[in-house]
């Protein structure tokens, strides 16, 4: 068991190191020169010496491996560098922009889980017949819709056509309804696909027939035998979906004009502000790795088999 935990943590750390290094090489070492872009432009009117001085102040004149070590140290101590464009620490920008994005992503995830459960439960109700096929193909449709277009369509329908949600000055809750729906629908698709498939697989297991042979009704079997077995693999997918959730949040913010990580990323890309981008990439990778590590470590707790297998074979 301890070996399993150590193994998983080690793997997670390895992934973080590789990601960090790749992000450093791609975004800091190779282009290197957001400083040049900003300060060499004629309207700044700076001399070559002054630019060199600025470069030195950012540490951009050091040899590459020294820059790397320095960046590692900085990230470990929570210093993500300076936004060259805005001239403020990236940390401050994140402090402002991260919370709204996390709020949106968190709410959307909850909504997605709710939607998934409703879809799966409905498609497994007795007497759904033809509707069942339609419900089961719904996730395929959801996954094929571009997030940004979905957002626009929701605005079109609910704000412009039906006038249900105000565009001009919505309340704090009203403001979030459409963005959360926009993000939740595509996120629910893979969850529902996996959950429905798992339910079908578990229903085909012999232990389900044994439960029926005990006299258990279909719904008894679904809730007491199928649910837990089918939810387990869905957990893994939920962890992996975190990346999509974050990416979706960035796009959703762009569509609804919300401030947050999306706006920050957008500016960073447009201005080649690589320090900001690097921080965002590394932090989201860190979050992704942590979430999936938690899922991995949670798994043996939920599934007794795994604890056993882990103890004996890993």
């Amino acid at each position, binding site marked *: 068991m301890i070996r399993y935990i150590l193994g998983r943590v080690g793997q997670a750390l390895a992934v973080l190191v590789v990601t960090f290094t790749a992000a450093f090489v791609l975004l800091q070492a190779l282009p290197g020169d957001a400083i040049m872009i900003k300060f060499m432009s004629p309207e700044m009117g700076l001399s070559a010496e002054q630019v060199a001085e600025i470069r030195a102040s950012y540490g951009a004149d050091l040899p590459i491996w020294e820059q790397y070590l320095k960046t590692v140290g900085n990230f470990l101590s929570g210093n993500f560098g300076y936004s060259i464009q805005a001239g403020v620490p990236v940390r401050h920008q994140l402090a402002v922009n991260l919370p709204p994005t996390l709020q949106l992503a968190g709410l959307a995830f909850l909504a997605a889980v709710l939607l998934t459960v409703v879809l799966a439960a409905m498609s497994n109700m007795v007497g759904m017949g033809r509707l069942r096929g339609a419900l089961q193909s719904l996730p395929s449709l959801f996954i094929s819709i*571009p997030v940004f*277009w979905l957002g626009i369509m929701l605005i079109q329908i609910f704000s*412009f056509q039906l006038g249900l949600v105000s565009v001009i000055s919505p309340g704090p809750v009203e403001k979030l309804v459409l963005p959360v729906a926009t993000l939740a629908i595509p996120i629910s698709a893979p969850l529902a696909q996996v959950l429905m498939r798992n339910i079908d697989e578990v229903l085909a297991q012999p232990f389900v027939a044994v439960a029926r042979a005990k006299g258990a009704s279909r719904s008894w079997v679904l809730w007491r035998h199928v649910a837990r077995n089918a939810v387990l693999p869905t957990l893994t997918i939920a962890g992996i979906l975190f990346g999509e959730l974050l990416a979706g949040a960035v796009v959703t913010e762009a569509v609804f004009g919300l401030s947050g990580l999306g706006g920050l990323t957008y500016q960073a890309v447009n201005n*080649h502000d690589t320090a900001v981008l690097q921080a965002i990439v590394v932090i989201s990778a860190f979050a992704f790795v942590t979430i999936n590590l938690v899922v991995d470590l949670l798994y043996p707790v939920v599934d007794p088999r795994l604890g056993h297998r882990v103890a004996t074979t890993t």
Partner: protein
Amino acid sequence: MTSRETGEDDLALIVEALPARPPWTARLKRLSPSLALSCLVIALVFTWTLLPQLFTGYSGTEGVPGEQLQPPSAEHVLGTDGLGRDLYARIVYGARYSLSGAFVAVAVGLLFGTLLGLIAGSRGGWLEALIMRLVDSLLAVPSLLLSLSIIVLLGFGTINVAIAVGAVSVARFARLARSEVVRVRRSDYVEAAFGSGGTFWAVLRRHVLPNSLTSVIALAALQFGSAILAISTLGFLGYGAPPPTPEWGLLIAEGRNYLSRAWWLTAAPGLVVVLVVLAADRISKSIQRSGA
């Protein structure tokens, strides 16, 4: 293990009694309507990219003065935009950007990803560990952020966007290819092939590759859809081809300015994207099933 195969299997026997492989004409007749429709959609959109002028008399970039923001009508099937350009024509001409981009993206992912996965799965050892950690790292970064980072590096534009989207899918292809190779390698028939004197390369060529590739090709079809989604997203955000290119994502972005006045400008191109992606998804599923 004591070893009777699960007692009796009436169904398996019936299935076994069916003819081994029906001729293709018979299979064509059994083609499900949804699959046929999906193939049709993809084929149609593909012809748009090659011969757009066959499908519309209007230009994809030049507007007709005085015909701005017309709703769908007999003359303009999907209406016109703020510059009087026929929306249907713009969608037809725009197909080439989305589709060629998706092709490049899938090619990049398929080529590099499958190669990495194959090497990892068939060689094993430290090489496998290294490749898989790299792949994990690629997967750890949200796809959009990864694409954006690569675009920052390469610059804006259709091809760069396609490469960025393809690079993201490398990890998925690598993972799948590796797991398929590992699955096939564990099978008795691969061991039997070694057992009858097969060399590593012969077994790889005769058994491992053909049996692993079905799933990989199914993923390619699926990724084709995802790539169209991703490219249109990046186009919408303004990182793809510049206006007045009729790229689908860009069309939606432009239509957004007329949200209250011209719903068709956003609805139509979006629906086209949805249809194409759905079709790719459907085809992918049937490829996957045919291999099982």
